[in-house]
């Protein structure tokens, strides 16, 4: 693509599996990827999966309707524990939403060729995860219909949001991140939408893809503008990857609650977000490449690289856990000391131990190449890490609130069926959107894959 990248045949990379299996031409790449959308009939598995996830979305609808009718009291939250599943899920989903933009933007700027075949669906995943995340801050409020108070609109009363509150920062951080991710994704899709427009034989599809392709003709000028726009957006998205979860971590670190009030949170949250995001990309990529025979494009090289990113971020997270523990104990602050003791000995210690097992111990297997290249192991591990990251948010958000300053006000939290249904519903929504996505948009960037074919075939001449 651009000059200055390390030659693809450098010895370091050669040792690894290829980023695209040899033997592919422009035509085969385009055929194979566009076929998923245009020609291959939807399989039974697709319909089964879609039905199940659609049913889960209905569960979400019912849960939200009941929530609006009755109020947040249908959840398990209570007086000392004002935030429960809703905020845990929000942070978890936003974390998952990190991988897409990271892969697309940061790896793009770093010229990591292997990002090409995974960036599209990773970005889609990001968008869907942000959509799922975005539900929660809205519905967790007591009066969601008044949530527009959090936006700086020109109120006739002359009232503004309270800008000292991290929740207001959240509003900006998440909405900016969502908007830029959507734009970035859409810009990247334009050449592929044109391909679909050109290849489909159905009139309605031609019209829809045609409109979405925005008149793309593939001229050199188009390519030139496209590439600079993409590069600019990548540059814009990169700081957002780091900022959005930093800002979300401020929700906690700005507050004075022991267990929340700590300066390590921004980097620790970002690392955790990337960790869980890559885990989710793996969770999706592994069945996807299997179902649509995309092993040629999403090769072992991709899986192994993602495993290595997980290992690296996992270690940062472990460092975070350790220093949270160390600093709390070292500070001598009696509330912080008490907090870490509660993590180990309190009524919720099994959550903490499970979290250590999932997030710190299990990923140590990734030091071994055998494990990194073992697809079932990677799949299971990716799910374990996702569970672990959810537990991490639960430990931070909920358990810190159960026992803070006033022992007389200590309490406990237990989620209700509605909490679980809402959470399951967003998982259903996320997967359902992915199901729809693979059927209507190219899950792998055709244009970029063709470029990759050109580059790799040059090497093989």
């Amino acid at each position, binding site marked *: 693509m651009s000059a200055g990248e390390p030659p693809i045949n450098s010895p370091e990379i050669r040792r690894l599996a290829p980023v695209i299996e040899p033997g592919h031409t422009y035509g085969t790449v385009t055929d194979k990827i566009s076929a998923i959308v245009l020609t291959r009939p939807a399989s039974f598995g697709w319909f089964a999966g879609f039905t199940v996830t659609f049913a889960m979305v209905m569960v979400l609808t019912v849960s939200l309707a009941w929530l609006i009718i*009755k*109020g*947040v*009291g*249908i959840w*398990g*939250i*209570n*007086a*000392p*524990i*004002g*935030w429960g599943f809703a905020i845990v899920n929000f942070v978890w989903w936003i974390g998952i939403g990190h991988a897409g933009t990271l892969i697309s933007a940061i790896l793009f700027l770093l010229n990591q060729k292997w990002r090409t075949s995974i960036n599209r669906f990773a970005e889609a995943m990001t968008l869907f995860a942000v959509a799922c995340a975005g539900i929660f801050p809205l519905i*967790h*409020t*007591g*009066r*969601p219909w*008044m*949530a527009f*108070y*959090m936006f700086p609109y020109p109120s006739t009363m002359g*009232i*503004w*949001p*309270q800008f*000292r*509150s*991290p*929740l*207001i920062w959240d*509003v900006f951080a998440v909405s900016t991140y969502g908007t830029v991710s959507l734009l970035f994704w859409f810009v990247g899709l334009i050449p592929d939408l044109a391909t679909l427009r050109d290849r489909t034989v159905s009139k309605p599809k031609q019209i829809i893809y045609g409109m979405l392709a925005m008149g793309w003709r593939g001229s050199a000028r188009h390519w030139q503008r496209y590439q600079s726009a993409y590069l600019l957006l990548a540059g814009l998205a990169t700081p957002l990857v780091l900022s959005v979860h930093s800002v979300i971590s401020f*929700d906690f670190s*700005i*507050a*004075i*609650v022991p267990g929340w009030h700590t300066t390590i949170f921004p980097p620790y949250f970002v690392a955790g977000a990337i960790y869980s995001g890559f885990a989710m990309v793996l969770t999706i990529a592994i069945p996807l490449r299997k179902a649509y025979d995309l092993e040629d494009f999403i090769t072992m090289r991709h899986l192994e690289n993602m495993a290595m990113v997980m290992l690296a971020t996992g270690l940062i997270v472990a460092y975070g856990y350790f220093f949270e523990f160390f600093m709390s104990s070292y500070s001598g602050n*009696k509330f912080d000391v*008490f907090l870490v003791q509660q993590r180990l000995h309190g*009524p919720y210690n099994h959550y903490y131990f499970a979290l250590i097992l999932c997030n710190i111990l299990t990923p140590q297997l990734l030091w071994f190449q055998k494990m990194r290249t073992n697809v079932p192991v990677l799949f299971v591990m990716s799910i374990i890490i996702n569970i672990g990251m959810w537990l991490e948010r639960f430990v931070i958000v909920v358990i810190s*609130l*159960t026992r*803070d*300053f*006033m*022992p*007389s*006000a*200590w*309490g*406990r*939290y*237990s989620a209700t069926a509605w909490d679980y249904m809402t959470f399951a519903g967003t998982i259903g929504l996320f997967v359902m959107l992915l199901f729809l996505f693979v059927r209507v948009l190219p899950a792998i960037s055709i244009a970029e894959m063709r470029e990759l074919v050109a580059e790799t075939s040059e090497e093989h001449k």
Partner: protein
Amino acid sequence: MDGMSESEYNHFPMHHEADSHDEDRAEDLTLREHPLDLAAVRAKLQSKSGKQYWRTLEELADDPHFEQLLHREFPRQASEWDESVDRRDFLKLMAASLAFAGLSGCQANVQTNIVPYVKQPDGMILGKPLFFATVMPFGADAVGVLVESHEGRPTKIEGNPDHPSNLGATDAFVQASVLNLYDPDRAQTVTNLGEIRTWSAFLDGAQASAAEIKGANGAGFRILTGTIASPTIADQIQALLKLYPQAKWHQWEPAVSDGAREGGKLAFGRYVNTVYRVEKANVILSLDADFLASGPGHLRYMKEFYRRRKLDQYAEIDRLGPEMNRLYVVEPTPSVTGSSADHRLPLRASEIEQFARALAAKLGLGGDGTLSPAAGKWLDSVAKDLQKYHGSSLVVAGEQQSAAVHALAHAINAALGNVGATLYYTEPVEVNPVNHLESLRELCADMDAGKVNTLVILGGNPVYDTPHDFDFTSKLRKVRTSVQLSPYFDETSEHCQWHVAESHYLETWGDARAFDGTVSVVQPLIAPLYHTHSAREVLAAFSDKPGVTNYDSVRDRLKTANPSGDFEKFWRKTLNDGVVADTAYAPLGGISSKFNPAGLPAAKPAAAEELEFIFRPDPCVYDGRFANNGWLQELPKPVTKLTWDNAALVSPATAEKLGLTHSVAARGGEHGQIISNVIDIALSNSKVSAAAWILPGQADGVVVLPLGYGRKKAGYTGTNKGFNAYAVRASSALWVAAGGKISKTGADYPLACTQYHFNMEGRKILSTGTLEEYNKNPAFAHEGDEQPAKSDSLYKEFAYPGYAWGMAIDLNSCNGCNACVVACVSENNIPVVGKDQVMRGREMHWIRIDRYYKAETPTNDPSTNEHDALANPETFFQPVPCQQCENAPCEQVCPVGATVHSAEGLNDMVYNRCVGTRYCSNNCPYKVRRFNFLRFQDWETPQLKLLRNPEVTVRSRGVMEKCTYCVQRINNARIEAEKQNRPIRDGEIVTACEAACPAEAIVFGNANDPNSRVAKLKAQQRNYSILGELNARPRTTYLAAVRNPNPEMEKA
């Protein structure tokens, strides 16, 4: 209200019909079935000239169905029934429907018009409350109150500072009594065998009976009442007894023992009333007496007691005595009084008498008591201390104690020279003191023998609260004509022929004597909401003068008692003051104890292994009469912090022996739900199942069975809550019962406990010390402080140029009596959320009272082997309202600015700006914010709408709320002050909690004014902030608790 025209009070016409909902829906359907006739519409339009307005085309078309629809008042209301209503909503709706049914059914659908005042009554400004003095009769006492009235609706009760029984203080019962007035479950009409009857039908029936009774010379006519302290009722009953010479008057008060009465008889040969002068006592010994929290005069005693425990000198509240008093308490179960004790000794109830005997012996009165060596040693020191303060000590015997203990207390007080100094005796306050148990026994025997033809039960619920071995219910069936007057259609009403709905004290004229004999007039604030009547009217119905009104009887009696002078002037002054001047009984002269302790029969020493069961009135529902009061049901009981249930209380060691434990539930946890074991109690030939509760500080081997729960017919709120301790209460063991058995059933029961964690975890939350420590270092509360610099904040400090509202709470004076909590609920329209929500940790009280134990070895689990630490821990209470921080963590995190800092330092809540993120609550270190997780307010029940304070927003769901320092009262005072162009004076603003507090523990005012009471308190060295190291800089500060232990016992 007698003497007032009805229309003046009828601002709230309710002319719904109970069954209108279904008709409405039918109406709706018919409308839909008739399609709109467009041609008719056009024709109509053409036929009209000029501008025409119409609501719908149907109206324009003059559709008769639409006309009909318009005439229905709330056609859409019918949709309520389409929705699935849950049980709670259903019951609310049913309550509302019943209320409508009552109103419409009885008033024969008379539509009354409402009209504005043509001439505004003198002194009445719409929107401004008026205050009227009245009294709340309660047992052998009457509490003077000032009732706030908004346009004729009583909404809030304050104490009357001029009344001798409370000097302006109130307790939880008094505060909550206004809710009873508006209780939608109240009985509303006269019924005969459950069928609604008119009052005149009852009068006819009563007069017919009266004629018959007259014929029989009164034989077979019986009256059953509780304790009567009303002179007019007493006169009426006496007149009836004169009219019907063979009639009899029986009395039964389930929660007051005969011990005090009979003790007086033992000591003096006659019934007396004992009045304490607590403020004069330097050393007080309580023999299981909860004299600060219950019994006649307790509000005054509390005020006087804590005035002797103030460690400061400022204008209004002056320490009356030369030194801080000292309190010794011997009691089987921790009480409010016991928690204030400087030395507390847990003894089994049966050992209290031994203790009193031993004390009498020690003081040289003869007799002897057997005590354990440790208790004996304790007693030696106490006796020495009492003797040291000869003439300024006081021994108080408990309401539930036996006649012997009371007689011993009389003898001991006489020996200590206290009579006439720290206590005096008067004529009994109750009009006809009798032994209630014997009186009831006689009635039951007579009923059983068929000697009772007509029984009139005036207020009281004997089917529920009489000893089970009397089997009152089946005996009641043998009575031909039974009449019950009670505020609810309760367990007894079901078995009575006639039931007359009783008027609330705020609805009817009356009178009552206070604990010292002072007479007060009960002045009604509102015309009876329903067709209710008073005991006077029921008694009159059976007399030869059936038409006498309450008003006349009260006035006439006063006129007779005060024949000289201008009666009208006197009457007006009496009503205005709320007390009839100079009517307190004079101390009885020439009375001396003739009691010889040696003459007491030898008491059998209690077997140590045997369990001892004691019965106590519940601190929240009393004997069961407040069972349907949601405010009281949801009020955490002072020591146990349980709500909505009673439980069998056992000590940690006894629990261990019986294998009883608690576990903290995952939902709600320590701040909500504790799972306890269910036990079967077999006692006095009866049995009952109860939840067990482990209570630190209780005497081992004692099981407390609180009365007042397990009601079967109390109303929506009170029915089937807790267990019925009356079921195992026999006449032979009314207060203390031995020989019972406890067996664990294996079942568990969830209890709603608002504070299970009682260990401070080494944090500086509640600071305590001894007088010695205080004298050595008055700033002992600040030892080890880590108060950061004021400037340690990112944000600029606020300047408070004008007022800076602040509060100081003297922990030395708080005994957790809960008056402030209910006062706050009443003032601020705080909703009742129900047991389920309390168990989820969602109770809404703006001020809570935290209870902490101070033990040698800190532990938080009363059910482990570490119970020794909790055998007799010191108990401390701490009221926690919003701390109104100057550097408030809540304000900084609210995304919408719904909680903002006022120029005077309040953390204001802007309810309609709040979106409900609950971030403020998470960030509040004191956890004083309360969130409306669901719609907790009752918006449907019309009666409850009348109850609300119109000056305080009724919060909806999804909104955060908290203590505002009664900002409505601040603003009222500000308006008054600005009108007069002067600053607000100190003491002009009294918050609801401060006004209610009998101990004067809470002081509110302007901290910027160095002369204000609050500034002086805050200037004291023992003034500290909870968790000062957080630098939130609370405006609510605390004065460390200082106990005054006996140095001699400390050393030992």
